[in-house]
């Protein structure tokens, strides 16, 4: 698809397939597209990962440098997550400062990392009130084939898991791994008609009434959630999504992200 409007005929086709429990690319409703995660691809970054999820591709770089803590958390490190939907990645993305879609994506990625306590921020304090480690997570989307959310979240956690504190460079001791405690995994479901499918492709996103992202941690508890889109979900649908998302997150974590 390029930046052309999707024909009604195509939309109907996708809906009708969903009714028959089928998807355009032949996947089952709970199947992810092929997932490839590579780490350590950017040597200027303290941690990095490239994620290919079907036709979606993102590169995540983690930069770590000393800075001043926030006044309300003087003894904790800082996480700052940014994501840009650059026009290289899709004919629909425009130049300029991030708009609400990009900001939402960045905030949800951030939420999973932060709320799962995946980074032990108290260990990122150099001198309380004065100097802490700042962890910048920058997500660069290169190809939008749908479900940027999951690709970005996976990229962020994979990059963090391989990141090093560049202490020597700043005369702050010896380099060390980032103090990681948990591995949150985001799983996104899309509602197409009455059907719930995981890892929506770009075409499925275009017809989906709503998307639901569920981020769960190693224990299988929830760390963050986001409903994005206008179609309402029933309680039954919501509960079902949570169940399959946690199950799927476990599967992905075991296969791709064991420390």
């Amino acid at each position, binding site marked *: *698809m*390029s930046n*052309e*409007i*999707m*024909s*009604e*005929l*195509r*939309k109907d*086709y996708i809906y009708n397939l969903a009714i028959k429990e089928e998807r355009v690319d032949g996947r089952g409703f709970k199947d992810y597209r092929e997932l490839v995660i590579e780490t350590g691809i950017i040597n200027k970054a303290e941690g990095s990962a490239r994620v290919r999820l079907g036709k979606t591709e993102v590169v995540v770089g983690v930069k770590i440098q000393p800075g001043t803590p926030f006044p309300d958390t003087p003894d904790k490190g800082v996480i700052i997550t940014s994501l840009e939907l650059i026009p290289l990645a899709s004919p629909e993305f425009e130049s300029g400062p991030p708009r609400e879609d990009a900001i939402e994506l960045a905030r949800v990625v951030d939420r999973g990392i932060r709320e799962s306590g995946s980074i032990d921020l108290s260990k990122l304090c150099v001198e309380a009130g004065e100097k802490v480690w700042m962890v910048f997570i920058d997500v660069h989307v290169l190809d939008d084939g749908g479900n940027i959310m999951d690709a970005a979240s996976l990229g962020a956690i994979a990059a963090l898991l391989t990141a090093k504190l560049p202490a020597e460079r700043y005369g702050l001791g010896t380099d060390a791994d980032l103090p990681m405690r948990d591995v949150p995994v985001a799983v996104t479901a899309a509602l197409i008609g009455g059907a719930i499918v995981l890892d929506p492709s770009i075409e499925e996103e275009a017809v989906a009434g709503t998307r639901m992202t569920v981020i769960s941690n190693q224990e299988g508890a929830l760390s963050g959630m986001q409903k994005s889109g206008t179609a309402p979900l029933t309680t039954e649908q919501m509960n079902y999504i949570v169940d399959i998302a946690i199950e799927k997150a476990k599967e992905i974590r075991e296969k791709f992200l064991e420390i």
Partner: protein
Amino acid sequence: MDKKIVIPGDFLSDDVKNATDGTYVEDGKVFAAVYGLASLKNQIRVVPLSGKYIPKRGDMVIATVSEVTFSNWITDIRSPYDGLLHISEFPKRIENDDMAKHINVGESVMALIKDVDPIMKVELTLNDRRLRRIDEGRIIQVAPSKVPRLIGRNGSMITLLKNNTNCNVFVGQNGRIWITGKERDMDFAEKIIFKIENESHVSGLTERINRFIKEEKGESAREPEYEQEPEIEEEDIETDKTVEKTEDIPVEEETQEEDAPEGILDELLGDGK
């Protein structure tokens, strides 16, 4: 093979007189202007391996309505330029207020490019019995640069496709393809079309596709068959019920091209030859 892969700037020939599409002439020499397959016999040209659809007068395309204005349907034809369908080009007289009732945003039509002016204003028409709104079946997309291979010499590929799938298949020059038939047959047709698209530059394509069809048929014969007739909603568009019966469209035939022979339209529309 007399074709070779070239990139922009490659020297092709000194025969300036026969330089055609995909080439340019400088200092009395012919060079490739695009990345593609060069053919040097008779006419010198380069068929690009990729690129956008650039509308030409007389092309049949599938257009999807993006906006309905006071007297025009503005359509997307997968090109840098919108296709304009004026109310007067609708096969019968309708009121301006009713335009959206006849063709609404998101709906597609088989249309003919009536005219393209020097600044690329593209005018479409539905004023031909074979042209119509598309209400059933599927529309799929291939790279516009692959359309000639999909049609084949004298429409041979498309005939092969139709005969083996029981589907009716119309290939728009803009790389949109309309398929009608039974669900399972359309699945099969789609599969073959994407196979052709992916292998369009491999030699012996027709033979490969033939073999592919045979293999696939051997397998799929065991699968259960969906019996699902597409709903045909007959609108008041003045057209034949199907696109089977056709007459020549009164447009200028293009200069004959190797891969896009004359009579394509008839082949495409399945006049049952």
